[in-house]
């Protein structure tokens, strides 16, 4: 049984079909990539998975049970964590405070929550910034904080939304390394990206969409050499290979 199944997912905003009949499944312990050019509907799919937007049609099944229509906080408690493409730090709280707040999802007491928050910050390499206000972190730090917060909720499935966007090459390598560490801890990752380097380096399988519709699925190599995918990213001039 797949950990997450997205079945015939359709999301319309009035007349605009942002996601059109997309289906895929994510197996446990894999890193599954969702790629497509800007505006293709990738983040909308995430927003449907954790019911940030209600689904228009189709179903989302997590660990064999449908989660469509469940409140967002309940979906988090069931084991799906997510980061946001445009990072949402809790600005006027400290870094430690940010992660403690999310650790209360599982922790019973203040000591437990703060302890767990500290451990997660160590894991993500943010411990030395723990008393800084979240708004004082640069973008790379905020993105890592976003991940740390999601990790503190002890997810089985982590949705990473364009974690690599805006990072310089050093930060990018560090981000990829962190993703590997997360996968090695036994957390399944569903990652939305449009930076090829990240997808090619770490994904097990990739699903490509454009204009809300599926255009390819398979190993990174297979998808990257698919002419329809190349056309979507680079225009038909390049599609002939």
């Amino acid at each position, binding site marked *: 049984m797949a950990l997450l199944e997205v079945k015939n997912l359709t999301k319309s905003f009035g007349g605009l079909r942002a996601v059109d009949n997309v289906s895929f499944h994510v197996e446990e312990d894999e890193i599954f990539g969702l790629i497509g050019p800007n505006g293709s509907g990738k983040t909308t799919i995430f927003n449907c998975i954790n019911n940030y937007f209600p689904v228009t049609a189709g179903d989302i099944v997590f660990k064999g049970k449908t989660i469509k229509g469940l*409140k967002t*906080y309940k979906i*988090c408690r069931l084991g799906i964590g997510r980061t946001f493409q445009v990072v*949402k730090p809790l600005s006027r709280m400290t870094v430690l405070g940010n992660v403690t*707040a999310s650790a209360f999802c599982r922790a019973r007491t203040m000591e437990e*929550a703060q302890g767990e928050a500290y451990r997660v910050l160590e894991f993500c390499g943010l411990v030395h910034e723990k008393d800084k206000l979240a708004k004082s972190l640069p973008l790379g730090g905020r993105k890592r904080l976003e991940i740390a917060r*999601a990790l503190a909720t002890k997810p089985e499935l982590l949705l990473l939304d364009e974690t690599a966007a805006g990072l310089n090459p050093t930060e990018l390598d560090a981000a990829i390394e962190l993703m590997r560490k997360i996968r090695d801890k036994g957390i399944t990752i569903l990652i939305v990206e449009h930076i090829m380097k990240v997808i090619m380096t770490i994904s097990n399988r990739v699903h490509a969409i454009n204009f809300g519709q599926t255009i390819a699925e398979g190993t990174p190599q297979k998808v990257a050499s698919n002419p329809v995918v190349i056309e979507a990213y680079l225009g038909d001039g390049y599609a002939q290979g």
Partner: protein
Amino acid sequence: MKKRNLVFLVGGVVFLLFPLVIHSDYYQHLVIIALMWAVVGSSWNLLAGYTGLVSFGHAIFFGTGAYTAGLFITKVGVSAWWGMMFGGMVSVLIGLIVGLICLRLRGPYFALATLAGGEIFRLAAINWESLTEGMVGILIIQTFQSKVPYYYIALAMTILCVYVIHLLMKAKWGYYFVSIREDQDAAESLGINTTLYKNVSLLTSAFFTGMAGAFYMNYMGFIDPEVVYSLHHISIMAILVGIVGGVATILGPAVGAFVMVGVQEAFRSALFGVGPKWISQAHALVFGLLVIFVIMFLANGIVGDWPKIKRTVLRIKEST
């Protein structure tokens, strides 16, 4: 002993002994009113400063608490002091309804909805004469002749309210409230039931504000819709107390209460009888100027920006 604990100890002694040392009815009254505003301001601060839901309608809860106490006399025929317990509870029930309507709104829309709510209650109280006696108001015989018992009741209420808010903010709820304030959507994605916690914040705020309203009924002996459901004198005053004292601090509203009551009285009495007569007309103007000053220079209020105040005072002392 740590400096902070020393301040608390001295402050505690001062407040405990105050009415036994200062016998003047006039000053006792001012401090009692300031304590009541410390409660209303702290309650407002819990919802607005810590949870980010800026209410312009706290008169809803104050007035409801006051009328609950009054109705114990006019309808039930028992002492209005029952209102101290039940005023808070009835305000919570009202808060549930207010929450159902307003908590689905954000930011300025929430503010406007609560403002409208306050006005609705005021108009309802004016017109529902069979329940509230309308503009005739409710007049009761005060239980105590001296102000001293009222002082200690107000003090106890203030200590209870501030302490409960302090405990809430130190624990999980504190983290959750601030998370909701900073980014409600992120909070929801982190497993926080934002609907539940917004309600917890609102209902706690309503409870203590209602209790303060019930106290007002008992202490002043007379209420009417224009007094207790007033936008200017209750809802806006609560906001000013919070802003001037320091939003999102535990003691800010208490400090703000004393400052605002002091300023209000200073101007109403034309600087305690010393200044020219026209100054008593200026108090609304002064409130506005005070708020502008605070927003420009002391955005975190007197308590929140206390380090900044200390530095400025030191700098002034050094240059003279």
